[in-house]
């Protein structure tokens, strides 16, 4: 997995590429906790190039969400593949996260 970071005014976009599993999720976690520490108002995680996510990847996102809630930041996910979408709905997290169709929607939404 690789992560590309892009900063725009109040927004940080983290674009993940590859498979998020127990091996790679610490990398995602590092970037998310950094954003929480920096109190970035809006963090968008672009999952367009993510073909697989496991429970450690989801746990990482939940942890970041809870961290951001503390300073009223907003964590947005976008461009979920069908499989990743299914996993979020199975984990009953599709209502908990703000999920957008694509990066554009997430940026303006």
């Amino acid at each position: 997995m690789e992560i590309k970071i892009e900063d725009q005014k109040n927004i940080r976009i983290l674009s993940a590429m590859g498979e998020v599993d127990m091996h790679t999720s610490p990398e995602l976690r590092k970037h998310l906790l950094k954003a929480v520490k920096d109190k970035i108002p809006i963090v968008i995680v672009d999952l367009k190039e993510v073909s697989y996510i496991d429970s450690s990847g989801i746990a990482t996102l939940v942890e970041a969400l809870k961290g951001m809630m503390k300073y009223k930041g907003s964590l947005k996910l976008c461009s979920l593949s069908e499989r990743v979408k299914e996993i979020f709905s199975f984990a009953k997290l599709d209502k908990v996260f703000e999920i957008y169709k694509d990066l554009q929607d997430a940026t303006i939404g």
Partner: protein
Amino acid sequence: MKQKKNLQNALNHRASIEVPSHPMYLSMIRIFLEKLLKLIDIQTLIIEDIKSAVDEACSNVIKYAYKYSYDKTIKVYFSYSPKEIVVIIEDYGEKPQDLSFQGRDLLDLKPGGLGMHFIKKAFDEIVFKSSKKTNKLKMVRYL
């Protein structure tokens, strides 16, 4: 069609893979299962569920049986019949104290506790057995 015919020629559909207990090898277990399940013409949705479930079970082996020691071994056995898919995960680590393996309530928002839910989603029977030397998690998916 061709695949199906060949399938009948191959009388035993048993395969296994053994890898070190380092998380970097989890992707190998997933690709092993994906390739295998595709060869025997299993539906994509079932393939994805099984991949997720076995991946979670192997992550749990690394976390709980091996307490993050990465130089041990995980073995995954696979067998197929038109009736069912059986996956057995074997480790040589610690015996668990509590065999209930409860995942968390999904409505209780906290990180963790999701793995067992993935396992139960993919498999119809889940049996855990510990002997002196090994732990075995046997998971059966009816077809």
